[in-house]
């Protein structure tokens, strides 16, 4: 998935061969690899980012249910605004944590960093519950001693983006791939939920996601860059963007007695 945000790979894999045809061989393979050029291929990323990956996400709306009830999300345009805001705040923060975990930063330090970046206790509880559910799926799909170690250290669940990044690492994926999975999830969850909550035309909801794709690329580039710096500077270098309205609405949503989604 080459994009405008893709940094040039060493040796300029995009340079055509002397006869004008596209470069062949390993360089050509790298040209078509995800931004990180990780050993794990796009196939593994598709498995991980698939909305049907059985890690519990289907029962969560990413704040969309509260936003729909408050009237802030009522059609495709307002869904797009909601998703854009979530992508650049909670999505960016999650992508940074996931990229850092995939890069090999200490997952327990990242778990603390995730706590510090999640002011809403309802959302901390949600992130840990989803992290534990993802851990179960991850250990079944890409068994790894690092996943086992985190599961043992956080039996009640680590923050989901940290588990997601470590899962990407176990799948042989790189930091940008982990950021893609986290960033995409930040918008695909609310979009799917809005289809169920508003009976929104599913084609319109998917078109929203397609329009946000270039911005997802930008968020991934920022997250991956921050993760690279965090390798030297520690988790403090990771994005800490927050969306106060998401936090407040999540606290309120957690008290509802009648709701379709767990968060």
């Amino acid at each position, binding site marked *: 998935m080459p994009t405008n945000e893709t940094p040039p790979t060493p040796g300029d894999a995009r340079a055509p061969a002397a006869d004008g045809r596209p470069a062949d061989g390993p360089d050509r393979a790298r040209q078509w690899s995800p931004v990180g050029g990780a050993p794990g291929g796009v196939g593994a990323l598709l498995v991980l980012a698939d909305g*049907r990956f059985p890690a519990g996400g*289907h*029962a*969560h709306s990413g704040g969309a249910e509260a936003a729909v009830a408050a009237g802030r999300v009522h059609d495709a345009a307002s869904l797009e605004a909601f998703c854009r805001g979530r992508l650049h705040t909670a999505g960016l923060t999650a992508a940074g944590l996931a990229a850092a975990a995939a890069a090999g930063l200490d997952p327990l330090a990242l778990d603390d960093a995730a706590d510090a970046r999640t002011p809403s206790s309802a959302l901390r509880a949600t992130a840990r519950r989803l992290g534990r559910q*993802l851990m*179960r799926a991850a250990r079944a799909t890409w068994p790894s001693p690092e996943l086992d170690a985190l599961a043992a250290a956080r039996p009640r669940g680590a923050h989901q983006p940290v588990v997601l990044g470590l899962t990407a690492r176990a799948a042989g994926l790189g930091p940008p791939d982990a950021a893609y999975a986290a960033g995409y999830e930040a918008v695909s969850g609310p979009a799917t*939920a809005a289809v*169920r909550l508003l009976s929104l035309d599913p084609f319109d909801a998917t078109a929203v996601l397609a329009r946000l794709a270039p911005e997802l690329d930008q968020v991934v580039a920022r997250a991956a860059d921050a993760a690279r710096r965090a390798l030297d500077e520690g988790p403090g270098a990771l994005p800490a963007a927050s969306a106060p309205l998401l936090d407040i609405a999540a606290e309120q949503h957690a008290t509802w007695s009648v*709701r*379709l989604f767990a968060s």
Partner: protein
Amino acid sequence: MHLDHADTYPPRHTYGATGLHRPDGTRRALRIGLGGPVGSGKTATVAALCRALRDRLSLAVVTNDIYTREDAEFLLRNAVLPPERITAVETGACPHTAIRDDISANLEAVEELEETVGPLDLILVESGGDNLTATFSKGLVDAQVFVIDVAGGDDIPRKGGPGVTTADLLVVNKTDLAPYVGSDLARMARDAEAQRGELPVAFTSLVAEDGVRPIADWVNARLAAWTAAPA
């Protein structure tokens, strides 16, 4: 009552904190799923089963409400079990997804019950009311019961579908209503046998004295097979 599936409990691994056995080597609790259409009497069946079995067995229940905690609250209100033995799982408007396609939340609930109130003999996982295609994943439950009722139409066994055809036990509930809704119980039994072959069918009326007995007997037989199964 007919024979059950030949291979009653094929080996399963659910990638959780606990496998088929507890640390002391005993088998973990038997997990039985109850599914079926809205209003067929799943929650009432769970409540009656709890009353029938709770004195002899260590029980817990996981409910999968569609958009409320009402099923869990019904069980709590009727005090069929202490509150710490009842957990509600939220399903994001897709009850069948939570019991079949993505069972992670239900597995969490089941294992937390084992951790907090265990050791348990039996965990009942009640699906949110859904349609005739809803079935439980074998990664979540060891056996499943499909509950329909005579008032939903006596042609449901003939129509078949995954729940009616493959469930380990088919329950046809509310037999007391059959004369009032024009349902032909003999026809339902014939159709069910045609769809299910040797798999058992229980006709129940929970308003009758000990009306849940046919299901309780089946559960006891499954539990005996479960505990007797080779380690």
